[in-house]
């Protein structure tokens, strides 16, 4: 019996359409993401790309600073980039689920006309990429600890802050991903690029690999409007403890303040995503976009 079947047999799950849809969608997403290769090849594929991404930054940093990996700025850059893997995966994940279902497998019309909870279905599809992304983050961080002496020590991690900011931050990110996915439902063109564009913009404005103070003053405010900015800051503080590099743009916020801001983003984005999804599904049906095959 598969894990998904065991979860589906739980009494709580059996009673809830939304939960059943979520579990099945997560299982489906995992199968789609992983079953094109044998487990070893899939593991290599899941690790090589993020590692290469972070190594580009490592080499750039090493060339300029003569490999000053002990400087807190290096840990700031490395951890920020490693965590950002999750942002990219979650923000674009739901959009890709829509594109896959609609354009590649051509089953979107069947799925969204079936009596299932479409909102939790999309959440479930996003979770599969979240799982893959989480593994990539852990391996990337482990690689940094082992090869570059990244100052992350299990005994020094602020576990409560890590746990709370992970839950709140990932909830906010998942809701953002859902908004992007729902938006994809309403698009006839350019849906391939929108998720990447948003993720790319957030990479630039959220201080993922450099402090916001490096940005021109007239651009910094964008960073303050993004949940990713606060999530990355909270996660860095939790993981790096006293070794975290502190920059004046966010240093004035206490840990509690960061958590409160993240909680606010999570709640607002959850509500917005639920309404936005309903509007987007309705719009895509009205405009005949639900079963569109653009051939792009």
């Amino acid at each position, binding site marked *: 019996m598969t894990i998904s079947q065991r979860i589906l047999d739980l009494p709580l799950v059996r009673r809830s359409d939304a939960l059943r849809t979520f579990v099945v969608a997560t299982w489906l997403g995992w199968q789609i993401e992983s079953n094109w290769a044998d487990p070893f090849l899939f593991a290599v594929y899941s690790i090589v790309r993020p590692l290469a991404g972070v190594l580009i930054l490592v080499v750039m940093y090493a060339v300029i600073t003569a490999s000053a990996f002990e400087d807190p700025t290096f840990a700031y850059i490395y951890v920020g980039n490693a965590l950002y893997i999750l942002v990219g995966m979650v923000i674009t994940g739901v959009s890709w689920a829509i594109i896959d279902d609609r354009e590649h497998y051509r089953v979107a019309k069947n799925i969204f006309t079936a009596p299932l909870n479409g909102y939790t279905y999309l959440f479930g599809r996003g979770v599969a990429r979240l799982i893959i992304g989480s593994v990539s983050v852990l391996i990337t961080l482990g690689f940094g600890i082992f090869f570059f002496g990244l100052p992350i020590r299990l005994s020094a991690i602020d576990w409560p802050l890590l746990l709370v900011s992970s839950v709140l931050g990932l909830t906010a990110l998942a809701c953002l991903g859902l908004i992007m996915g729902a938006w994809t439902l309403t698009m006839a063109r350019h849906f391939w690029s929108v998720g990447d564009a948003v993720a790319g913009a957030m990479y*630039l404005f959220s201080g993922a690999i450099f*402090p916001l103070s490096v940005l021109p003053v007239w651009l910094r405010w964008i960073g303050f409007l993004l949940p990713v900015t606060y999530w990355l800051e909270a996660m860095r503080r939790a993981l790096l403890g006293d070794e975290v590099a502190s920059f004046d743009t966010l240093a004035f916020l206490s840990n509690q303040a960061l958590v409160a801001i993240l909680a606010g983003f999570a709640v607002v984005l959850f509500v917005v995503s639920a309404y936005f999804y309903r509007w987007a599904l309705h719009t895509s049906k009205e405009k005949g976009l639900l079963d569109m095959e653009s051939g792009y």
Partner: protein
Amino acid sequence: MFDQTRVTKATGLFLFWATMWARAYPRMVGALRERSWMFFETLLPVLAVSGYVFLYRAINAPPEYTGFAVLGGAMTAFWLNVLWSMASQLYWDKDQGNLEMYVVAPGPLMAVLLGMAVGGLLMTTTRATVIIVVCSLLFGVTYQITDPLLLAAVFIVTMAALYGMGMLFASVFLIAGREAWHLSNLLQEPIYLASGFYFPVKALGFWVATFASIIPLTLGLDAMRQLIFSGDPTIGFLPATVELAILLVLAVVFIAAAYFALSKLEQVGRQQGRLVERRR
């Protein structure tokens, strides 16, 4: 009664030429008809380049590194075009039912591939130019071109080798089937790293840079940096003229390999009846 106008069939070299432009045409015209693509295809590299430029500024890098990142970012447009619009193209065509039409049409498949390359190259050169102009204006990059003729030669030969590689990959990726998508994904960041898109490839050490030189953009980018930014050969992996000679060899090898791979693919595909099979 009936119009007796005689239809002239293209044959030989003219058929090759006509097929190539027929395949290049939709790419060139498509870029003009769907101008909004320009926004995304320049915005994404500009965002990535901006991130790397700000990182260099955060760690107080010398100003020429901004130019290195801008040039590398512009070159990503060519690499992405080769991966997604050359290497993966026959796979997409199979998925959408175009490949069988290419195969049964009298035009040679090699001309179809070359048309894809010519159309893609023209389209991508426009995008790369926009990226360079926008980023140069945004970040105040200055250029000192020491030898424009050599620079032009390096660019042209790099593109010939790169798109030759793309033509070779098209056959390989078609065989890879469903994994083509993942192969293209996998060949992005690792190649940006190994080829030194955002830093001088020399920083990776001699052996890594040597192995990475199989990707034409590694040497092409390195030579262009030497010729555009300072004329200082010490920033380069090899002298620009040597890199040009190696790139010439790579261009010949890749185009010849693409021809043989495509012939083999067509032969095996016809024999096994899998050329247009869409289950994979």
